C-alpha cells in the first residue's frame, strides 16, 4: 500500500470522503491497472475519468488515427489532433488531467494473435470497440484469462452495457451467442450516433470499473443495462449464465479465433 501525500489527499479528496471509497478505496484505485480497448466515442470519456480518478496504470488500444468526423463525439481528441494516432492523443489528455497515472499505449488492431498478451497485465478490461468481431473476441479472451470485463455498445440514440465476471456471471455470448450475419449489421458509419450517447455509456463503463476496483456497490453482473436517449428510459434486463454458452459454458472455448468482420466495418483510415 502507498501512503497518500498531501497533493494526492487533496486531488482525490472527493473520492476519499465517500464512505464507500475512503483512503483505502483510493489506494486500491492508485494500485489498479485498467485496459481500455478503443480510444473513440466510449474510450474517450472512459480515459478521462479513469485518469482523473488516479487509476495507477491505464492501457489504451486503438489502431486508428484521429479523423475530423470523430470529433463530434470522441472528446479525447481535438481539432489539432486530426491525423495523429488516437492512442497518442488520448494519452496526452490523460496526462494533462493527471500526470501521476502511467499510460501504456497500443497503436494496433486487436486480433487473436495479440490480445492475450495485451490484456494479460490488467485487472479490468473495458470494451469500447465499434464492431462485433472485436466485441466477441474480447469476450472470448476475457473468459479464457478470467478477466473481468465491461461490455459496451451504442447505436444511434441507444446504448447498452453489462459487466462480466467470467464463469460467475453471464458473458456477452451467453446473451448474444455469435455476431449477427454480415450485411444486416448497422454498425457502419451510416447508422450514426448521437455524440452525447457515447458519453453517457462511456461514463457508466468508467463507473463500473471504479466500482469493481473499490468494491463499492454492485457491478452490472447478470444485468444488461439498456437505455434509449429519445425517451430517456433506462431498462435493466436480468440475465443468467447459459450453462450451454458457446464461450463460458461446460463445453466452452479453449482457444481463440478471429471473427469475420462485416465488410462495411472495415476501416479505411
Amino acid at each position, binding site marked *: 500500500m502507498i501512503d497518500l501525500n498531501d497533493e494526492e489527499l487533496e486531488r482525490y479528496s472527493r473520492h476519499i470522503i465517500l464512505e464507500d471509497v475512503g483512503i483505502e478505496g483510493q489506494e486500491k484505485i492508485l494500485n489498479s491497472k485498467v485496459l481500455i480497448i*478503443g480510444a*473513440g*466515442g*466510449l*474510450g474517450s470519456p472512459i480515459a478521462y475519468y479513469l485518469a482523473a480518478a488516479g487509476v495507477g496504470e491505464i492501457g489504451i488500444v486503438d489502431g486508428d488515427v484521429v479523423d475530423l468526423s*470523430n470529433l463530434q463525439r*470522441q472528446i479525447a481528441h481535438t481539432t489539432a489532433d486530426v491525423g495523429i494516432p488516437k492512442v497518442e492523443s488520448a494519452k496526452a489528455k490523460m496526462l494533462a488531467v493527471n500526470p501521476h497515472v502511467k499510460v501504456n499505449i497500443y497503436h494496433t488492431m486487436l486480433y487473436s494473435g495479440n490480445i492475450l498478451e495485451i490484456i494479460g497485465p490488467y485487472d479490468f478490461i473495458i*470494451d*469500447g*470497440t*465499434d*464492431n*462485433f468481431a472485436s*466485441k466477441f473476441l474480447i469476450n472470448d479472451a476475457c473468459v479464457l484469462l478470467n478477466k473481468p470485463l465491461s461490455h*459496451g*455498445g*451504442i*447505436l444511434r440514440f*441507444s*446504448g*447498452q452495457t453489462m459487466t462480466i465476471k467470467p464463469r460467475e456471471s453471464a458473458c456477452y455470448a*451467453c*446473451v*448474444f*451467442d455469435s455476431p*449477427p*450475419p454480415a450485411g*444486416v*449489421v*448497422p*454498425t457502419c458509419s451510416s*447508422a450514426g*450516433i448521437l455524440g452525447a450517447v*457515447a458519453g453517457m455509456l462511456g461514463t457508466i463503463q468508467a463507473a463500473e470499473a471504479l466500482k469493481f476496483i473499490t468494491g463499492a456497490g454492485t457491478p452490472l453482473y447478470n444485468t*444488461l443495462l*439498456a437505455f434509449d436517449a429519445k425517451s430517456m428510459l433506462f*431498462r435493466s*434486463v*436480468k*440475465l*443468467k449464465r*447459459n450453462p450451454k454458452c458457446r464461450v463460458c459454458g461446460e463445453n466452452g472455448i479453449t482457444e481463440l479465433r478471429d471473427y469475420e468482420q462485416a465488410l462495411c*466495418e472495415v476501416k479505411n483510415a
Partner: protein
Amino acid sequence: MKLIINGEAKEFSQTKLNVEELLVLENVEQPDMVSVQLNDEFLKKPDYAAVFLKDDDAVNFLYFMGGGE
C-alpha cells in the same frame, strides 16, 4: 393472452402464438439483430417457430449494438 414484452404487459388476441409470429406482431424488422429471451432463457433462432407462448410469459428483445467508436 397476456405477455410481458420488454417489461410491459401487453394483451394479445391470439390464443396460439409462436415466437416467430410474435416478432412480426412486434414489428421486429431485423430478427437477426435481436436476441430473444423467454423467461430468463435465451432462444436459438431455429427454435423460434417451435416455441409457443403462454399467458404471463416474459419476453425480452435484446438488440445487438455494435457501435463504440
